[in-house]
């Protein structure tokens, strides 16, 4: 307990914790839908695009969020499009885009500012990254995501489960795609600076996978994913503070541990 109150006495840690909890909640909720629709690679692709955009923004002295959010939103549309069409090999397309964005980011950085701590912290995350502005944006984001999942829960379910049927019954499916693309993009941009471009996509994928081990109903999976994500994040932060490991990596490792435990539990339950 004293450990936690000690942690809460640092304003930057309070910011990191609130921002992080909100972002991990959003990532988990959106993640369930993305994973079930086989879009989980998109998270990975977007984080790299986000990294590229951020490095370019820093190199030219632009505001990081104002540049990367629009760029990543556009990339999200684009990636959803190619995945939907199913014509081009979408996993290959995502790999090409994310590698190109990464390469662009690195090159621009090397030519201008050089590899500053800023850039490397985007790669692997930094606990200091959450500014007041970020926390406010994270709060707005999570309000929107929670609103979506509470008031449009059944439509989200229908679109995730069977798009053609949802469309036939009159749900505006493309609307949900746009919404998901924007929300995912914002989640990733916000989360990657703390978690790191290399690690943020795990925040989207792990909780969904863990929850799917535990529950058989969609509602159960959604709620469990949110809970697992927030708990793992907090645990990871405490561990990171205690033994001074990088925050992002600690959170991912806690997620992995929980996932493995749940897999074992499922195996023992005999299914």
């Amino acid at each position, binding site marked *: 307990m004293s450990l936690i109150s000690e942690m809460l006495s640092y304003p930057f840690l309070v910011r990191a914790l609130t921002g992080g909890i909100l972002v991990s909640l959003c990532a988990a909720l959106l993640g369930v839908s993305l994973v079930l629709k086989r879009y989980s690679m998109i998270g990975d692709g977007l984080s790299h695009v986000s990294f590229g955009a951020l490095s370019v923004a820093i190199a030219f002295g632009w505001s990081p969020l104002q540049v990367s959010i629009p760029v990543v939103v556009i990339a999200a549309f684009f990636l959803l499009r190619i995945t939907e069409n199913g014509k081009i090999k979408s996993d290959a397309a995502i790999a090409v885009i994310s590698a190109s964005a990464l390469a662009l980011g690195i090159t621009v950085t090397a030519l201008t500012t050089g590899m500053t701590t800023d850039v490397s912290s985007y790669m692997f995350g930094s606990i200091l990254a959450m500014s007041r502005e970020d926390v406010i944006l994270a709060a707005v984001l999570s309000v929107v995501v929670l609103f979506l999942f509470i008031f449009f829960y*059944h439509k989200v*379910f229908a679109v995730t489960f069977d798009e053609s049927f949802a469309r036939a019954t009159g749900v505006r499916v493309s609307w949900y795609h746009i919404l998901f693309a924007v929300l995912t993009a914002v989640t990733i941009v916000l989360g990657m600076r703390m978690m790191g471009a290399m690690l943020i996509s795990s925040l989207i994928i792990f909780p969904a996978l863990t929850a799917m081990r535990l529950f058989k109903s969609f509602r159960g999976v959604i709620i469990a994913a949110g809970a697992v994500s927030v708990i793992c994040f907090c645990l990871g932060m405490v561990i990171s503070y205690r033994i001074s490991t990088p925050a992002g990596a600690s959170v991912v490792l806690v997620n992995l541990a929980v996932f493995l435990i749940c897999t074992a539990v499922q195996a023992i339950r005999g299914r």
Partner: protein
Amino acid sequence: MKQPLITCSGAGFGYENFDVVTDVTMEILPGDYIGVVGENGAGKSTFIKGLLGLLKPTSGTIHVADELKKTGIGYLPQQTAAQKDFPATVWEVVLSGTLSRTGYRPFYSRKEKELAELNMERLGITDLRKKCYRDLSGGQKQRVLIARALCATEQLLILDEPITGLDPSAAQEFYQVVRKLNREEGVAILMVSHDIQNMVRQADRILHLKQKVLFCGSVEEYRKSPLGKQFLGGGEE
């Protein structure tokens, strides 16, 4: 005169840069029971996706009545996009069929839940209610999806090979349920099936597709036409 629910005039549908079906002219009236037949790859599923607005017509026009746009169409896909490992209970899946009735209301009302119960009973899946969709057998999954489609519509039900994977008695039961919906509740039915013998027994009209419309008319005419005779084989008459 009854307004048609869907009118196709000279409509063509296809993917990317090739047309699969062309020049389809037909209409679906309220209370119709249309059987769509044709060989594999004839473009039946493609035509249906076109009717549902999942594919844009590459030529011609397709007009959907406004009332139908509001209530939506009950649809049973031939292959579901729904994945094998999707975590959802049977209840959640069936209930999602009533979605178009909720409008902007975020929760299902008692009426919608009762409708879902009723349709589960009709298909004999009430005791699967709490089961996970991914743990069902192929035939059970099919019944769940049929129940969901029945929840969706008051006007038009479009079924793409609905009896695939059902055992014979379930198939007969299914035909009876559809028949009853059509007769007593006036739901228009458009059904794709390779079970041609049952199709001519059940449906009122036949649409025979093969890249274009080979036949569109009443069952009696179809039985008499050379095409129908050939497709039905000597066995029946």
